[in-house]
């Protein structure tokens, strides 16, 4: 399992966070310390300057009393030793300058700042200078006032030193932090990166057998890795279960298909045998009855001849039944091949073939425009042949027979119909119409085997459509059917528009 430790976002983020926190802490601490120290420094500077003022005061009192500025100035000159002293001035009790020491020999004297009442001393920090003013008493009486002025170079130097030290401390600490970071992030970033890598491998290769490597310490990361691996276990299990279920299903489907194919083959063989073997005896029954009538008819009375005729009829009827049944079976087993079919020429062709049946019949035909539909033309032809034959047959007793064929829109579906004004049937028995061998009329009235409508229904259902009928006794019957499930309705309408 490969993994890379790059400067990925998490690792970099951790390092940056560490550096930032450390730097902030350090800087805050250093600033606090520096501030405290500088305050202390200022206080001590004031104290030192104050002491110096007292010393000078004590040394120069006599000079003041004897009005000797020169001796005062010579003792003041000792202040040269302090490089930070800008000037020191002695003022008379009246506030007039008496003597002074000036750094750099530039005499810059000024007025005496006032000491607030009740205080012996006052000091000010202003203009980058420290000024201390002290009242000197001699024997209980104000003798003079001493003014000390110092620059702040001590403070400045201290500040500069602090800056340098802080800088070095911070740099050194940050370097140390950076080093420590790269150790620390190993324990967090590395496992995360490995986990991310593993996840992307699983997702990309769809390989559910990989697992993330475990973390040493027991923390949230370890929990994450553990859960991740458990999830993969489950996925793998389910995947395997799915595959095996699928395989099992495939096997079952194959088995069923084989069984079906076997059943179909048996049916084929059965049909063949029926078609061949049943017909011969029927032919013989009919044949010999006929020969009897022909050659021995003169020896037989009317009743015998009638019986023989019945025998012949029976045989002929059975032959018809066998043919119809075999036909229905063949149609049932046939594969449906849908093609866009224009039903108008198809209907015309059926009518053409029916001419012999229509010989001598007076029938009014009302043929409407039929659509083009996706259907099996051969099978739909059978539907029309059956329905029209029925219409022709059951209008035989009517003087003016009327047969209509057309299409009706029925709730968005394309519905075709064949209607006649013939014998009709009792709607009460409509549910029996499509049963095999079921008839709603006596064979004496209208011949038929009762297989035609069953075959038609079979074909309609193969197409996924529906068929139903409405009728009234002696007023005719109408058969409605669709050739598609509603789903295809839109397609057929599109074909309609294209056909026009």
């Amino acid at each position, binding site marked *: 399992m490969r993994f890379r430790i790059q400067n990925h976002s998490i690792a970099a983020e951790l390092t940056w966070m560490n550096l930032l926190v450390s730097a902030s802490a350090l800087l805050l601490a250093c600033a606090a310390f520096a501030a405290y120290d500088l305050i202390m420094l200022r206080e001590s500077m004031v104290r030192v300057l104050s002491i110096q003022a007292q010393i000078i005061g004590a040394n120069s009192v006599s000079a003041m009393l004897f009005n000797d500025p020169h001796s005062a100035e010579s003792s003041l000159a000792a202040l040269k030793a302090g490089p930070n002293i800008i000037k020191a001035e002695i003022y008379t009790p009246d506030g007039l300058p008496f003597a002074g020491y000036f750094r750099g020999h530039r005499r810059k004297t000024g007025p005496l700042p006032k000491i607030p009442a009740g205080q012996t001393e006052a000091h000010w920090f202003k203009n980058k200078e420290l000024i201390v003013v002290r009242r000197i008493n001699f024997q209980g009486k104000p003798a003079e006032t001493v003014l000390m002025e110092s620059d702040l170079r001590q403070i400045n130097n201290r500040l500069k030193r602090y800056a340098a030290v802080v800088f070095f401390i911070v740099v050194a600490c940050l370097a140390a932090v950076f080093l420590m970071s790269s150790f620390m992030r190993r324990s967090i970033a590395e496992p995360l990166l490995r986990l991310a890598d593993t996840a992307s491998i699983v997702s990309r290769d769809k390989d559910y057998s990989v697992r993330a490597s475990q973390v040493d310490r027991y923390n949230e990361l370890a929990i994450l890795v553990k859960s991740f691996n458990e999830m993969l276990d489950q996925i793998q299990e389910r995947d395997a279960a799915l595959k095996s279920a699928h395989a099992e299903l495939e096997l079952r489907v194959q088995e069923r298909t084989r069984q079906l194919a076997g059943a179909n083959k048996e049916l084929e063989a059965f049909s*063949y045998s029926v*078609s*061949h*073997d049943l*017909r*011969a005896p*029927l*032919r*013989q029954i*009919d*044949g*010999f*009855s*006929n*020969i009897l009538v022909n050659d021995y008819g003169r020896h037989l009375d009317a009743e015998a001849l009638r019986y023989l005729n019945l025998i*012949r009829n029976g*045989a*002929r009827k*059975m*032959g018809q039944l066998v043919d119809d049944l075999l036909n229905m079976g063949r149609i049932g087993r046939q594969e449906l091949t849908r093609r866009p079919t224009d039903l108008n020429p198809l209907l015309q062709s059926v009518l053409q073939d029916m001419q012999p049946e229509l010989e001598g019949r007076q029938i009014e035909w009302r043929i409407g425009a039929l659509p083009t539909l996706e259907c099996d033309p051969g099978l739909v032809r059978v539907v029309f042949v059956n329905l029209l034959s029925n219409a022709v047959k059951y209008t035989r007793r009517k003087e003016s027979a009327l047969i209509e064929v057309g299409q009706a829109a029925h709730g968005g579906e394309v519905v075709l119909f064949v209607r006649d004004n013939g014998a009709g049937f009792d709607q009460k028995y409509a549910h029996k119409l499509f049963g095999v061998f079921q008839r709603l009329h006596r064979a004496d009235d209208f011949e038929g085997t009762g297989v035609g409508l069953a075959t038609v229904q079979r074909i309609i259902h193969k197409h996924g459509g529906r068929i139903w009928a409405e009728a009234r006794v002696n007023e005719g019957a109408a058969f409605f059917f669709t050739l598609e499930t509603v789903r295809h309705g839109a397609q057929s309408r599109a074909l309609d528009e294209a056909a026009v």
Partner: protein
Amino acid sequence: MAHSEVEIVLVEDNSADLELTLYALRQSHLVNNIHIARDGAEALDFLFCQGQYAERAFLLPRLILLDLKLPKVDGLEVLQAIRNDERTKLIPVVVLTSSKEQKDIVGSYQLHVNSYIQKPVDFDQFRQTIQQLGLYWLVVNQTPFSS
């Protein structure tokens, strides 16, 4: 119309069917000389002057009426044998059978049968069919053999 030659060879195994067919043939008054074979082997023996017919002089019949479901040698096998032999290749063969199955029809035509007829169940129709058959193949149709 008395010929010493054989006009029709009728190959049929079922006795009742055989009787009906002969009745119909006789009624049509077209044919006098019919040879009957009761199974495929007998038919081939007769046609090729072998087996029990080894003594027979070789003569071509004018028409062979062949049933398909025969014992020993099947109808289609007989047809194939007839068509495979140079001497008998051109004899008109009409299959006369109960079956209307596609595979029988297609199989027969693939072996170059001249005509395929399904025996109707109705005897009147059967008689008419036989009469038309005889009239066509023995009178109307020209054979490649001089007679």
